[in-house]
């Protein structure tokens, strides 16, 4: 790797860190203050060298010079930056095979302008300069933008900067800062050269879900929209997103193949489906052997694989037997899965600078974005709701839903008409009672399955059904789901021979969103939050308000 570094500040300590990070690299550093001349003078060291890449890192505060201490008159067009970019363009055209990496610009968080807003605000000046860089990168094909601000957000300014070295040696960053820069730059340079792993191989138990499928069963594993199960679901979404930019996925798990296949096909909480995996080794064989087979099947080298497994023993085995496979450590806490995966795995092993047509075509991403834009331009709520293709599934007195129903009664605060909190035992008891019925509703739309999100508990009093409990998770509010759910319940009550319903709205500090629900449905108010209505006209009312978009499906 033949690299040159061009800057308006002293980056000398980066030399050591680049050497440590990238091994045999002896970058050419332009002398301090010479960055513009190096570009303009074709006899300069920069032009004399045979280079693979040039790293350009400008300090924004230096670029502004004394303008930093006054309000820049034309913040959008920094003339020094414009001059520099013009000179850099000359170099890029002269040396079209050299990849030029240019850092985004970051101003210090403090300025004498303090809270000043508008185009003269420091943040606006910074954004204006970065826009110049972006436009430059768009127009010159061998230029890549490096998001230096991302690194500052990640580590914090105190980690990165030390003002005293500026005054002692025109150096701005700490050694830790330079180290972080070298690591990130290494990743970017590999991405520029197209060096990226190709396949992400995943374990299943305690990796894609919490718990062990073979022991805890499909209902017992942690994979949900709530609690720590959501961490696994979010992790799956990250993995799926990586697939969308062209990374192949594979499974390598010690598990019963049939049980896994059934779970992958049937679990509504699985973001990743069987078809997402280009190769699958779900068996009781040695995982190192499985990895060799996967590489062979996908026709890639072992050095194209990244293996993610929660078990330290399996990781150690793979590291020992197939050293070419990258085996990142696994976080000790599932809550860290997403940030670990994005920060440690994606940047290190699957860096991207530009997406190819082939990357995107694999997933039909263009098509989906197109659709989303169309939806966004719709004005009518009804059309939007209809386009979601919502499907509700009613679950009546199903003991398997008791735990989730109890949880919803305890956690739901906003669209909760009765604020009646139940334990699992109480829900089960209510289900088993002669006169009571517990309804749960599952929600699904074209974007995926949300699981059980609503609860209605009804007690029979002669021909009248008294709604003891009615609530809906706020995730699905605003789509008419409450009306659809109530009408499904009413249809069931009607089938059971009931003719009237009564209900109550009990005020709490958080449930004002539900205050007008029953009156909006057209129920008669009896005062003190009590309502009553005959079932048949109530169903007609609900039909008129969104409910007609649902196909009632009973399970």
């Amino acid at each position, binding site marked *: 790797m033949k690299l040159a570094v061009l800057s308006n500040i002293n980056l*000398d*300590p980066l030399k*050591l860190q680049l050497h440590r990070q990238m091994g045999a690299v002896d970058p050419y550093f332009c002398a301090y203050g010479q960055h513009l001349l190096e570009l303009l003078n074709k006899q300069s060291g920069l032009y004399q060298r045979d280079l693979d890449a040039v790293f350009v890192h400008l300090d924004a505060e230096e670029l502004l010079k004394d303008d930093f201490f006054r309000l820049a008159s034309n913040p959008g067009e920094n003339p020094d930056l414009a001059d520099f970019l013009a000179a850099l363009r000359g170099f890029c055209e002269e040396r079209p095979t050299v990849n030029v990496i240019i850092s985004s610009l970051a101003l210090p968080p403090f300025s004498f302008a303090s809270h000043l807003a508008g185009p003269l605000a420091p943040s606006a000046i910074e954004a204006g300069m970065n826009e110049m860089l972006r436009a430059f990168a768009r127009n010159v094909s061998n230029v890549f933008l490096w998001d230096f601000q991302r690194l500052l957000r990640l580590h914090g300014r105190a980690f990165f900067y*030390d003002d*005293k*070295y500026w*005054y*002692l*040696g025109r*150096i701005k960053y*700490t*050694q*830790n800062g330079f*180290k972080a820069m070298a690591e990130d730059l290494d990743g970017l340079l590999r991405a520029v050269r197209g060096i990226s792993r190709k396949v992400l191989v995943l374990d299943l138990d305690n990796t894609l879900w919490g718990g062990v499928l073979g022991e805890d069963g499909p209902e017992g594993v942690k994979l949900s929209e709530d609690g720590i199960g959501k961490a696994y679901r979010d992790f799956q979404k990250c993995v799926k997103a990586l697939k969308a930019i062209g990374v192949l996925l594979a499974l390598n798990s010690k598990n019963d193949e049939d049980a896994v296949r059934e779970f992958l096909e049937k679990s509504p909480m699985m973001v990743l489906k069987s078809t997402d995996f280009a190769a699958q080794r779900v068996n009781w064989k040695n995982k190192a052997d499985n990895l060799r087979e996967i590489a062979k099947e996908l026709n890639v080298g072992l050095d194209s694989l990244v293996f993610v497994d929660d078990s330290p023993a399996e990781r150690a085995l793979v590291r020992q037997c197939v050293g070419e496979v990258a085996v990142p450590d696994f976080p000790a806490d599932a809550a860290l899965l997403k940030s670990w995966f994005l920060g440690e795995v994606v940047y290190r092993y699957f860096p991207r600078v530009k997406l190819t047509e082939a990357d995107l075509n694999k997933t039909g991403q263009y098509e989906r974005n197109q659709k989303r834009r169309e939806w966004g331009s719709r004005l009518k709520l009804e059309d939007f709701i209809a386009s979601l293709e919502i499907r509700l599934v009613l679950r009546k007195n199903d003991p398997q839903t008791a735990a989730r129903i109890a949880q919803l009664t305890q956690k739901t605060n906003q669209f909760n008409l009765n604020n009646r909190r139940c334990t699992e035992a109480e829900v089960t008891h209510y289900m088993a009672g002669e006169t009571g019925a517990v309804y749960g509703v599952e929600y699904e739309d074209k974007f995926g399955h949300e699981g059980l999100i609503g609860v209605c508990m009804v007690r029979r009093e002669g021909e009248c059904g008294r709604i003891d409990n009615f609530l809906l998770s706020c995730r699905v509010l605003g789509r008419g789901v409450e009306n659809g759910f109530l009408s499904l319940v009413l249809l069931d009550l009607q089938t059971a021979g009931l003719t009237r319903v009564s209900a109550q709205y009990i005020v709490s500090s958080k449930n004002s969103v539900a205050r007008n629900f029953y009156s909006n449905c057209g129920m008669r108010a009896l005062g003190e939050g009590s309502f009553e209505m005959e079932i048949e006209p109530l169903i007609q009312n609900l039909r008129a308000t969104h409910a007609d978009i649902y196909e009632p499906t009973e399970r």
Partner: protein
Amino acid sequence: MLIFMNRPNDDLVKRIEDICQDDLNIPKPSLSAQTRLAEIKGLDSLGMINLFMAMESAFGVRFTTDEMAAVKSIGDITELISAKSNGSGGRQT
């Protein structure tokens, strides 16, 4: 007895030697508390800055410009680090 009392700072001197060798490319520096910075071959003004930066990173401390200006010998550095890190000298990253 004296040898044992000096031990913690001897450790620091050893670690500064390592830093000089690993971070500053100064081959086999043989340092003691009495070594004056001006005597260390290959340690120019930029090298001095690099040395302080590496020590801040290795010992998890920060020096002021006055403190840095007052340092004349390796012993001055070890005293400064001992005072700042309460003698723990632990590597923080």
